[in-house]
């Protein structure tokens, strides 16, 4: 757990320079879950090379490398996909659909859903300043 936290901080510190450029670039922190009492923390680290958006979810020992990442600037809709494993070790696809809100704000948010297999939960992520 401590290692994951350290890795997260290291990756996040590298990505902090992005703020006013491409709206997705940088590190994002937030949580997902059906009720305020049952929230699971999540971290995104996203990059943009001029053509493709790349990155990872939850950097650390349980990192998920993004397989698909798109942004539709006409609606600021975000679509991310990555693979993880369930308790039995079976690969499960994670699909994130959301919309960027407060697009010009350094602490903008992505509000949407996290779908993992057949489970779907609301998600809110905030861009680190």
């Amino acid at each position, binding site marked *: 757990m401590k290692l994951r936290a350290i890795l997260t901080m290291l990756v996040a510190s*590298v990505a902090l320079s992005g703020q*006013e*450029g*491409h*709206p997705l670039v940088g590190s994002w922190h937030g949580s997902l879950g059906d009720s305020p009492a049952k929230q699971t923390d999540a971290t995104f680290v996203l990059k943009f090379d*001029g053509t493709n958006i790349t990155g990872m979810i939850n950097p650390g020992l349980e990192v998920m490398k993004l397989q698909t990442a798109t942004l539709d*600037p006409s609606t600021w809709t975000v679509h991310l996909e990555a693979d993880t494993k369930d308790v039995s070790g079976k690969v499960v696809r994670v699909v994130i659909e959301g919309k960027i809100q407060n*697009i010009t704000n*350094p602490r903008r948010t992505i509000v949407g859903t996290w779908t993992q297999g057949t489970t779907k939960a609301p998600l809110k992520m905030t861009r680190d300043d």
Partner: protein
Amino acid sequence: MKRWNALGSAALAAGLLFAVALLAQDTPGPSGAAKGGGGTPGPGKGKGKAKSAAPSLPAPRNKEGRVTFGPGPAGTGFWGGGGSIVGRGGNNLPANPLLEEVPFQPWAKALYDVRRSDGGQRDDPHVRCMPPGGPRQFQTPNGFEFLEQPETKRMYVVFGGGPRSWRVIYLDGRALPKMDEDSVPTYLGYSSGHWEGDTLVVESTGYNERFWFHRGGLPHTDALHLTERFSRPDFDTLKYEVTVDDKKAYTRPWTGGFTVPWTYTNWDGTPGGEIQEYFCQDYERDTQSFQAK
């Protein structure tokens, strides 16, 4: 209780005045500029005065005969606010691209449209006193001046507005550093320049993404590379041209520019021709310390 209310009102009023002062000093960019040179205060727009209609004197020269960007023997004055690198008319160069000709990537155009939708100042980092890199340096209120130091082969650009910063342009022929993941990008970037006759040509890279490089919010990324060309066709005019090369935000390099007038008075219009003391303070939060003793 009344005392606290009074103090609170005074603090609120001071905060509002501060915000209004900031906003008044830096107005929207390309949209307004395309119509008439931009809203930045300066000669003909603010209270600072440029020379009257009389023909301008020739640009001053150093002992080697090359044009300089300073006041010359006159000893006073500084450069006022410039125009925009997008749109034509006013202080903008006639060859500037129109807004629809700027080769934005789709995300950059969409983001720029949102920024402009609120008068070009929506969440502008400069309003929060972040240093202005790139062309924005020459669009900010309170003026700027060039200080050349031949013995160290450096040119300093000193800004009177914003957080009152300065930029170093190395004139010793050094190459720009290669930017990689270990590099620390900055607001003003890393600049290396050389003279081509009377024109100063400056290459810059190493910019961070924490500021707007142009008034009104033209987007850029950490891939931004600028090639700036400064010249002085006459005493009263600085010509600024810049090629913007940022493949993450624009589909191809593009060029625009503007002229900047020499300012003979202080910024507020009083006699003097000096950059006056001004500090932009980042998001003043210590209002509790404003209590009367």
